[in-house]
């Protein structure tokens, strides 16, 4: 099955800093989603992004499917951005979201 690698595994930022999270995947994908799991455990869908670039407020995401990676940008980080970020591609020909191990982000005030 598809392999998913996220980097960095952990990141600590001061409020106001910018960051880039990377997701590499080993096979062609039908779609790719980014999720944020907040400290209370809720999984929030940030982006559905099989290819191209999307922006939503301070967050944006880019997927380059031909090169098998996706990036999540967080600008002007806030303490509420803390949590775990997951990348989850869907392998071509399947319906399954395959989650990476996640990246723990801590934003300090």
């Amino acid at each position: 099955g598809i392999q998913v690698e996220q980097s960095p595994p952990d990141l600590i930022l001061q409020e106001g800093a910018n960051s880039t999270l990377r997701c590499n995947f080993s096979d062609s994908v039908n779609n790719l989603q980014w999720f944020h799991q907040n400290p209370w455990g809720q999984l929030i869908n940030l982006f559905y992004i099989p290819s191209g670039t999307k922006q939503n407020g301070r967050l944006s995401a880019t997927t380059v499917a031909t090169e098998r990676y996706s990036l999540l940008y967080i600008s002007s980080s806030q303490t509420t951005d803390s949590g775990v970020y997951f990348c989850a591609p869907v392998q071509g020909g399947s319906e399954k979201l395959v989650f990476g191990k996640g990246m723990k982000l801590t934003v300090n005030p």
Partner: protein
Amino acid sequence: DTAVSQTPKYLVTQMGNDKSIKCEQNLGHDTMYWYKQDSKKFLKIMFSYNNKELIINETVPNRFSPKSPDKAHLNLHINSLELGDSAVYFCASSQRGGASDFGPGTRLTVT
């Protein structure tokens, strides 16, 4: 209005018991899923139903049985609970091939 809801939120039970978790979505999605998140936060799909038909059945012990009475509901029944079943179970829904919305999770603790 909660889009994907699960009950109960917490479940503490003893080894050997049978328990069920219920899930409902009011988004009109045609596909529903069960995921398991272990103590290391690793998320893995267990089952998926599309319009009440099972389309994904990962290598899950047959003590786990999903049931979809209609396309808005997907329940998970677990027989003969084991210590290793302790985890957070998430229900999710999507239009087939679309973005997934997750429920709040059910934290199952088996003692």
